[in-house]
């Protein structure tokens, strides 16, 4: 016991001697959860802009019928890479960045459990991003098989496909390491007195998300490894001529892919569940049921995957099973929305930017939830599968859902990170601008989908022109709002501004507000006592 104390003391002097390493070493050899969190967030934002530029390329080509700017094969590369980059490069790493920053602060831990592995999981991301981005310049260009990389189309692709496979492998490894880190940290390093059922919702949702990641990332790795060996080593997993089955790829992919959807939304629920009580100045309604609802969503997410595949032609019993199972997911999701509304009810609300984004999230995400419910009905899904209705649906849950919650989280915790308050007016401009342009972009896609416009089309019948024009105009507006966000909100609030108090929000609760703003390099070296 005594030796431990001595070591501990030694560690302290060591830490202080080298406090705040400077220059590239601070980032390359980073083991501090806050630095790694910032790295993740910068990386994610860079990828968000990259993926956004690809999306604007897509929207530009679709501004008018006919082929104006690019050949269809390049168009397909854009849709594919837009999806891969946004899912694996922007949304997922952004949530990991939030986890790194906030989980230790929220549970009163000094850092993440495995600091060096944390460094490794981040530094795996840039090479993966370079592989993805670089694949545009290899012969045949980037993979154009869609972000789902369906076989056997993926077998036809050039070396860009192999680069995408390796990139996804690397990002998968990074995600698994990140998840192990998060689970270990949450389960072992909570401050004394913080039982699991007293833990902040953001930690709960991330704990469940991390388990989902560990369960399904290896499944994706398996699917793309089989694609790789089909391509190069003569196997026939997905080749009917050799006894394989192309539909098996889809089963494996969506067994990953559906939980993946919840991986991208559960932490968003967590962020919103922190912000709504803070600005309603009232505790979260139904904390326990929120935890159970999150867990139910996670468990149900494993038995609904084939609702992505109704048109592959499965037996009637399978169609019915997946329809009913999918519709059931709307129950725990509904519970969450009801709880948020009940939290607001009879509160004492103010609407600073974090709250605006949180309310915007609830409002617009629910629209995506309803279109999801409509799509769960098998006959309607068969009618709408692979049309723009689906594109509208998943952008409502991924952009208005995940991305808006990330913005909400940034405005909420940003003062803790930078030590300065953002400019409230600019924050509100960013919110209203994003909300309006988002809806201009994606709402018309419901009409296009109902009318039958297929997705991943470089050119379309002229009857679809007008709504495509509207969507394109909206998309450019939405893109500009994000440039505004980085230039007018984020960078100024890093450089200076009104200093943030330790607890800048009147109604906010949690250990993260007990440390000064900006949070010092080392926090909770002595575990705090919780309640």
């Amino acid at each position, binding site marked *: 016991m005594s030796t431990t104390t001595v070591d501990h003391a030694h560690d302290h002097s060591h830490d202080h001697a080298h406090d705040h390493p400077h220059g590239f070493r601070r980032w390359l050899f980073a083991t501090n959860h806050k630095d790694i969190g910032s790295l993740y967030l910068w990386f994610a934002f860079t990828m968000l802009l990259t993926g956004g530029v690809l999306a604007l390329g897509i929207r530009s080509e679709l501004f008018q*019928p*006919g*082929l104006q700017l*690019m*050949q*269809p094969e390049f168009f*397909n590369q854009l849709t594919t890479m837009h999806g891969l980059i946004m899912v694996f490069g922007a949304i997922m790493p952004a949530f990991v960045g939030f986890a790194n920053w906030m989980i230790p602060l929220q549970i009163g831990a000094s850092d993440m459990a495995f600091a060096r592995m944390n460094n490794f999981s981040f530094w795996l991301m840039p090479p993966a991003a370079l592989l993805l981005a670089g694949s545009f310049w290899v012969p045949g260009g980037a993979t154009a098989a*869609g972000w789902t990389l369906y076989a*056997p189309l993926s077998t*036809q692709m050039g070396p860009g496909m192999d680069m995408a496979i390796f990139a996804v492998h690397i990002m998968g490894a990074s995600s698994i390491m990140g998840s192990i880190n998060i689970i270990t940290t949450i389960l072992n390093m909570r401050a004394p007195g913080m039982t699991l059922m007293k833990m902040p919702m953001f930690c709960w949702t991330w704990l469940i998300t991390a388990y989902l990641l560990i369960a399904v990332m290896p499944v994706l790795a398996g699917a793309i490894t089989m694609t790789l060996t089909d391509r190069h080593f003569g196997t026939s997993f997905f080749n*009917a001529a050799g006894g394989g*089955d*192309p*539909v098996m790829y889809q089963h494996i992919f969506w067994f990953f892919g559906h939980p993946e959807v919840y991986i991208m939304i559960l932490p968003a629920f967590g962020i919103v569940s922190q912000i709504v009580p803070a600005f*309603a100045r*009232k*505790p979260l309604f*139904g*904390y326990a049921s929120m935890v159970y609802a999150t867990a139910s969503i996670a468990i149900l997410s494993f038995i609904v995957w084939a609702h992505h595949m109704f*048109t*592959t*032609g499965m037996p*009637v019993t399978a169609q*019915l099973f997946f*329809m*009913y199972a999918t*519709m059931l997911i709307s*129950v725990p999701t509904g*519970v969450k929305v009801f709880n948020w*509304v009940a*939290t*607001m*009810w*009879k*509160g*004492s*609300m*103010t609407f600073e930017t974090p709250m605006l984004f949180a*309310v915007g999230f*609830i409002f617009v995400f629910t*629209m995506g939830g309803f279109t999801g*419910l409509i799509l769960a*009905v098998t*006959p*309607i899904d*068969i*009618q709408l*599968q*692979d049309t723009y209705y689906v594109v509208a649906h998943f952008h409502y849950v991924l952009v208005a859902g995940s991305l808006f919650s990330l913005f909400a989280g940034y405005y909420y915790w940003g003062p803790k990170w930078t030590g300065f308050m953002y400019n409230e007016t600019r924050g509100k401009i960013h919110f209203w601008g994003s909300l309006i342009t988002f809806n201009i972009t994606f709402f018309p896609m419901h*009409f296009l989908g*109902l*009318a*039958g*416009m*297929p997705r991943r089309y470089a050119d379309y*019948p*002229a*009857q679809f*022109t007008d*709504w495509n024009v509207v969507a394109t105009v909206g998309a450019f507006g939405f893109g500009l709002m994000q440039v505004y966000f980085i230039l007018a909100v984020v960078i100024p609030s890093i450089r200076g501004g009104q200093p943030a108090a330790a607890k800048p929000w009147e109604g906010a609760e949690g250990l993260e507000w007990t440390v000064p703003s900006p949070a010092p390099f080392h926090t909770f070296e002595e575990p705090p006592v919780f309640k």
Partner: protein
Amino acid sequence: MRHAKRYKSFMLSAALLATGMPAWAVVDSQGGPAVRQLNLQTPATQIAEQIYSLHNLMLVICLAIFVAVFGVMFYSILKHRKSLGHKAATFHESTSVEIAWTVVPFIIVILMALPATKTVVAMKDTSNADITIKVTGMQWKWGYDYLKGEGEGISFLSTLATPRTQIGAPGVEPTEARGDNYLLEVDNQVVVPVNKKVRMITTANDVIHSWTIPAFGVKQDAIPGFVRDTWFKADKIGVYRGQCVELCGKEHAFMPIVVNVVSEDDYKKWVDVKKKEMAAKADDPAKVWTVDELKQRGEKVYAANCVACHQATGKGVPGAFAALDGSAVVNGEKGAQIGILLNGKNAMPAWKSTLSDTEIAAVITYTRNSWSNKAAENIVQPAEVLAARK
């Protein structure tokens, strides 16, 4: 409502035409989407009708819940503000409320799924079809084979009919005005009779494609190496249009599907015309061939149809199948041999319904010039076979 919209867009395009606007003002596609269409396409089958009403039902229920939930939320947002001096309550749980809003949505989704169940079962019932058509997805066109029912044997490829001069390319302006059915038109339409159950069997040659006609409420992936099926029974005569809906490579947007639903009489006529067309395309019996051409073709026919009995050596199987090498019939007058091929004799089957005139002429010419045979009448033209059929 629909008609009103149609009428409005018609008036709009008429007005544009009247004011001398160019003719490319977009009008509704016949059997495809309407301009700025907001809802599902007009159903042309019972199934599509059911999907249409299911969607309306879902939309109404979802809208009602949406208005109720967000009515409460926005009421709260307006009234329970700090700026209005509202003091926060402290309640934060209620088991009975929690149970209520778990159970009620549960019941609602079950009630939503029940009517859909009936439709799912109906959509999967491909039995007792009047006509069965196999559709094969290929990069980037569709192949159709009429397998069963009236029109059996018809087969053709169907490719995009919209010329590239309407589409344009990066840096190349389209030189031709776009038609009403831009990207929704094909060279060979699938023709089916009205009010008949048509079973579509889908498969693919290369990658996964997906066959759909929105107005029929039908969509089925075409998977290489596997067959799947779906069905429709169109209850209105007309042309219906769809497009490939599974990403299949660069020309994914350029392989539309067009189904022409016609009356039963028109369908019979179409089958006749199509069959004649196919026969004509197959071989022109009036064509005059040289000995070598016929020998070459005949060798293949022989290998495919005759070799099992008469053997590659032409010596047959003694006691069972006649030898052709040195045979009196083969080396004799050609009329007798044509007769045996057309009508058969003992173990020899009649070939008149399986082989074409050209094939029969070719295989006879082949036997007359092979092995040790050196017939005086060494060539038979398809026209002679055709004449002998009468």
